[in-house]
């Protein structure tokens, strides 16, 4: 399940909804990861652009991998502005046993950072500045560039 929201996530509500949705699914483990905007470098918040078609197919391929292990992944992300101490990202894995969920949440969040088509901007002094130095080129990038 992939859910996108305008602005900050209502973390308690989303975690509760996911918990209740799977309460009788016989999963032994529910491992959520919540990403919260921290105060650093004078930012007022972060802002996000999302390209939904590719995000959906990327997420669907992870859901398939999870299914092979008897697990399920849920993810929520913000679009637009998210201010300090608010949250923009939640990922969670439900699985029969804890080991699968612990390993899966790690792999999933790492690949999310490297592959999910989401762009981050710092909100600073009224400007929206692309977080270029913290961004990662998607695997296979550069084919249109000049040959070295």
């Amino acid at each position, binding site marked *: 399940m992939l859910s996108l929201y305008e602005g900050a996530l209502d973390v308690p509500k989303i975690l509760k909804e996911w918990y209740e949705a799977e309460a009788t699914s016989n999963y032994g483990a529910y491992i959520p990861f919540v*990403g919260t905007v921290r105060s650093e470098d004078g930012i007022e918040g972060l802002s*996000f*652009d999302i*390209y939904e*078609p*590719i995000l959906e*197919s990327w997420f669907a391929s992870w859901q398939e991998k999870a299914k092979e292990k008897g697990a399920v992944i849920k993810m929520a*992300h913000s679009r637009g502005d998210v201010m300090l101490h608010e949250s*923009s*990202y939640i990922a969670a894995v439900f699985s029969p046993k804890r080991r699968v969920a612990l390993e899966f949440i790690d792999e999933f*969040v790492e690949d*999310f*950072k*490297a*592959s*999910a*088509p*989401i*762009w*981050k*901007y710092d909100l600073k002094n009224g400007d929206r500045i*692309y*977080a*270029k130095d*913290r*961004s*990662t*080129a*998607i*695997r*296979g*990038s*550069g*084919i*249109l*560039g*000049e040959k070295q």
Partner: protein
Amino acid sequence: MVRVEFLGPIQKEALELEITNLNELAAILQKDEEVKEWLANCAVAVNDNLVTSLECELKSGDKISLLPPVCGG
């Protein structure tokens, strides 16, 4: 006609081009002052599927997307 969209922080309007493969697109964009600095780090999708080679034939109505470096979360 092929539509070329520039996603995220690349501030450029979509282009409509008469091209038949990605090599032609590479040649056009390498001469584009607004875009050429992005090319070395951009991923490319054809009809929302990421491609990793220029050996890709295009037909009228195809959509190409350029995806600059990402940072979700």
